[in-house]
């Protein structure tokens, strides 16, 4: 087993990071104020990055999604590169919304060109013209809406399972990257902020909160990369989402506790990552649902081995 990035993967990471440095980041997210960043998506499409999951592979898709998430890109990039990539759907438009049920809240629903919809055992591709979208005001870091679909094209038998697994991978990837960015942002704060004549980051009570969340974020990242590689195995994909939810829950508390009052202001910026964590940890049924999927997948594996 060799987990080092190849030369091509390193080059991909560097080039996509350059795009996000120029066209994304905290200042840009503030400017966008919860709306879709079309120019960023256009740049990614023109550079061929949106189809990297199809053209290069799942790890390449994850690398692009991680960079996008850390840079608080205001577009559903993980959905497009990871979920659509793992499902092997070609010629998709840039903005895709994911729909778990008619009641669920869908990211970028009002901007979506098309939706991938869980419908029992099947997944469907529904164009925006065949969907009714109701925007929902929220505290999320994403624009949200409810989506009612009519018709759509089935992606085939058992495609619902494949969509759910790919979505679990994306949740894990986004939580890992969001948490790492939030922890590093908070670490900058505690290095500078002084109390009792010392940076507050020199106190173990502060250090341990951030260190614990950093470790959980790294574990989420590596488990999610593994899940992308083994995307047919729900034991692994649901584990990535379930552990990601634990990570998000702890990180939200930890980074806000150590940054104090300034951390919860919109001007400061930390909430750009943490409100997204709140959304991600509730998507697709949240921790409880992912964990039950893990247990069911493991029981099925053991039954198959015994049989």
């Amino acid at each position, binding site marked *: 087993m060799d987990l080092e990035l190849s030369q091509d993967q390193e080059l991909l990471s560097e080039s996509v990071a350059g795009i996000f440095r120029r066209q994304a980041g905290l200042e840009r997210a503030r400017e966008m104020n919860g709306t879709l960043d079309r120019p960023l998506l256009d740049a990614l499409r023109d550079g061929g990055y949106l189809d990297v999951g199809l053209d290069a592979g799942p790890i390449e898709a994850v690398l692009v999604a991680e960079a996008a998430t850390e840079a608080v890109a205001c577009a559903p990039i993980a959905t497009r590169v990871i979920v659509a990539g793992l499902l092997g759907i070609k010629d998709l438009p840039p903005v895709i919304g994911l729909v778990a049920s008619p009641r669920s809240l869908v990211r970028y629903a009002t901007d979506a060109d098309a939706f991938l919809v869980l419908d029992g055992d099947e997944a469907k591709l529904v164009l925006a013209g065949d969907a009714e979208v109701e925007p929902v005001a929220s505290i999320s870091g994403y624009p949200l809406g409810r989506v009612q679909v009519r018709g759509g094209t089935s992606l085939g038998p058992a495609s619902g399972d494949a969509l759910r697994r790919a979505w679990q991978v994306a949740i894990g990837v986004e939580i890992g990257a969001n948490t790492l960015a939030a922890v590093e942002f908070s670490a900058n704060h505690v290095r500078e902020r002084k109390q009792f004549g010392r940076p507050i980051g020199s106190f173990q009570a502060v250090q341990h909160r951030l260190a614990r969340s950093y470790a959980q974020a790294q574990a989420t990242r590596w488990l999610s990369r593994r899940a992308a590689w083994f995307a047919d195995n729900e034991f692994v994909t649901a584990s990535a989402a*379930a552990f990601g939810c634990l990570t998000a829950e702890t990180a939200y508390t930890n980074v806000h506790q150590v940054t104090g009052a300034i951390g919860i202001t919109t001007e400061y910026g930390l909430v750009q990552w943490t409100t997204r964590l709140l959304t991600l940890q509730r998507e697709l049924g949240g921790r409880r649902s*992912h964990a039950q999927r893990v*247990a069911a997948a493991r029981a099925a594996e053991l039954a198959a081995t015994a049989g």
Partner: protein
Amino acid sequence: VRDAEAKGIDVTDPGLAEVIGLAYATCEAARSMNYAAVNERVHHPDGGRHLSAVSRTITGPMETTVAQACHDILGEEAMEAGTDANRQLITGTSAPIAAGSLEVQLNLIARSSLGLPNS
């Protein structure tokens, strides 16, 4: 889980399934982190090996999580001597202490990965 099934406990109960699933997920996170730490050791033998402390920070509490899950699943029967749950309790209690306590690992991460000042 096998022990619970043998005792007639319904491990498909949604509440227990959640506990079981989270325990498995935590194990898989630790496994992935261990792979990453070994990979770092192999490819960067002279580097800071930051992921070793991260790996230990996940693995120690994982053992505790699994011990708690065993007790949640088996209930008071987990207190019987000589059971797997009993053995896991010992592992789960000692894992965050052994080979450099959890707090030492957190100190290492704070300094080497997050660049926080000495306390």
